[in-house]
């Protein structure tokens, strides 16, 4: 294959990576932005979305596209409900104290992971893509499903942007983010905003999980890498900044593919993790972020 089609293929693959990463990282980012808490169990919500897609595909009757559509609706709703439960049972009770939140979401991470291991088993499970039309280019055939992932991501990101910028719910969220106590005094139900934001964050990860299953299989440990990568994206993009998160997800998703081509996967991970740790040490506002509010 010549260089040009090779680069095209690498770019397409990178775009698919970037899409899934954008959704997962946006979930982590809005939770951190509004609630100022780090959710270590975020990767498990991603994993539960993927496992949910497998469960839907094997339990629901009907053609593949129908069960997949069912999974795309039901898995995020279930994960969202679980997130609301976790918020009510844990986070609210420790008053969203940042350090206690990290410790308790580590606990939640272990619980979700091991519950999945007990019920779902240790083996990776595959799900057929909802449709298997192949797009022919002069050089290679490309799965249309992967482009569908990119499309769904774009739709969700636009919808989320509209929700945050144009709707009343978004206004309440931004008010809470800006100043929680004043928002409370103005009658904004901060507790409900928090539990809603936590649910939306988890649902975004679950959607990403559902989308990735047909090209990557589901297993109970798959939440680990998306969690670390999402951390990377949120930090590089500037904590709490949504456009920054999207830009960083595209940058990192695209370059992750290239980096893995040039270096061994482990070496690529070492390089990117070290880089991000150093960004956090020397430029804590992120590469795209503005410095803190004066």
């Amino acid at each position: 294959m010549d260089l040009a089609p090779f680069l095209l293929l690498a770019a397409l693959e990178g775009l698919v990576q970037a899409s899934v990463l954008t959704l997962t990282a946006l979930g982590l980012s809005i939770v951190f932005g509004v609630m100022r808490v780090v959710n270590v169990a975020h990767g498990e919500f991603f994993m539960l979305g993927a496992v949910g897609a497998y469960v839907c595909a094997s339990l629901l009757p009907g053609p593949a596209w129908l069960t997949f559509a069912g999974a795309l609706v039901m898995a995020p709703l279930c994960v969202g409900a679980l997130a609301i439960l976790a918020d009510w049972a844990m986070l609210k009770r420790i008053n969203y104290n940042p350090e206690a939140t990290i410790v308790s979401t580590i606990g939640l991470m272990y619980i979700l992971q091991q519950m999945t291991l007990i019920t779902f088993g240790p083996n990776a499970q595959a799900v057929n893509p909802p449709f298997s039309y192949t797009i022919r280019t002069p050089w290679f055939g490309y799965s249309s499903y992967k482009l569908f992932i990119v499309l769904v991501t774009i739709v969700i990101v636009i919808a989320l942007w509209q929700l945050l910028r144009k709707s009343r719910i978004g206004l309440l969220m931004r008010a809470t983010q800006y100043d929680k106590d004043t928002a409370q005094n103005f009658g904004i139900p901060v507790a409900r905003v928090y539990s809603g934001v936590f649910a939306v964050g988890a649902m975004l990860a679950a959607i990403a999980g559902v989308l990735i299953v047909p090209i990557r299989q589901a297993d109970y440990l798959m939440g680990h890498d998306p969690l670390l990568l999402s951390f990377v994206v949120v930090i590089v993009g500037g904590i709490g900044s949504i456009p920054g998160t999207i830009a960083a997800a595209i940058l990192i998703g695209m370059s992750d593919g290239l980096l893995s081509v040039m270096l061994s996967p482990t070496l690529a991970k070492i390089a990117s993790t070290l880089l991000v740790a150093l960004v956090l040490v020397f430029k804590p506002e992120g590469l795209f972020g503005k410095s803190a509010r004066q």
Partner: protein
Amino acid sequence: MMSPSKKLLLLCLAVLAVLFLLQFVMPSYFVLTLTRIMIFAIFAMGYNLLMGYTGLLSLGHAMFFAVGLYASGLASYYWGLPLFWSFLFGIAASAAASTLIAFLALKTQTVAFMIVTLMFSQVAYLSILQFSHVTGGDQGLTLPPESRSFGFLGMTLDMTSEATRYNIAFVVFAAVLLLTYAVTKGPFGRLLIAVRENESRTEMLGFNTYVIKLVAFVLSGTISGVAGALNGLIFGYIGSSSADFGNSIEPLLFTLVGGAGTLLGPLVGTALMTLLIDRLSGFTTAYLIVIGIILIVMTLWLPKGILGTVRDRWAKWLN
């Protein structure tokens, strides 16, 4: 009437006496468990110095444990260094590593500090896997028979003997316990607690809080390295799981359960959790779920841990 710190010292000495005597009455499998408990209690005591006393919550202490383990183990494996010198080499290496990481990580605070320590630890873990031709990767390395014994003060100490392992672990444990006692009860210990309770006020009073945190971090990382070196040399095996995320969570769990910021809390937490995990992993592979539940229960209802609660309710001197 005894002074509070004298009472605590007496309690520590009593605990040490009981630990020493236990080896004569316990069956041999339990002696092995107790050896492991003492080694991990050293790890947890190191962690507690930073997390419990200074208020800095690190999610990456596995890296210092692993540096101690690998530096001492590799020195013995490749250079054939006598065990005693390998042990010292491991401690020196973890002191150097924790100094380097302290300089970087202490530029950040709270949540960023947790993530940065987590990431550096992840880098250490991945590096062990990457350089598997030296480290043995996830298979690990088993130390050769000739580095399983060493001469010390005219005696030959054999690391395959149950009693030798126990007593070496006991001596190091006792040394670290008395060192932490001296550090936390002395003037420096009060500075650590001052930083934990109110850093800006401590600074306002004219103390350099950065230096205080730096010393606490290095001390904590080095003690974790002592535990790692001890673990590798006593059991003759060095493996990558010592550096993974789970091994950073364990000292946190042990310290939280026993009581953060109490001298004997790490020992209590390590003993309870090790016995529990050993019992559970006998009949389920999903024993991590219990760790998860306990982490949540501790943060929700018992944030001060067992000894922390006992201290607040009944015995103010039990710091």
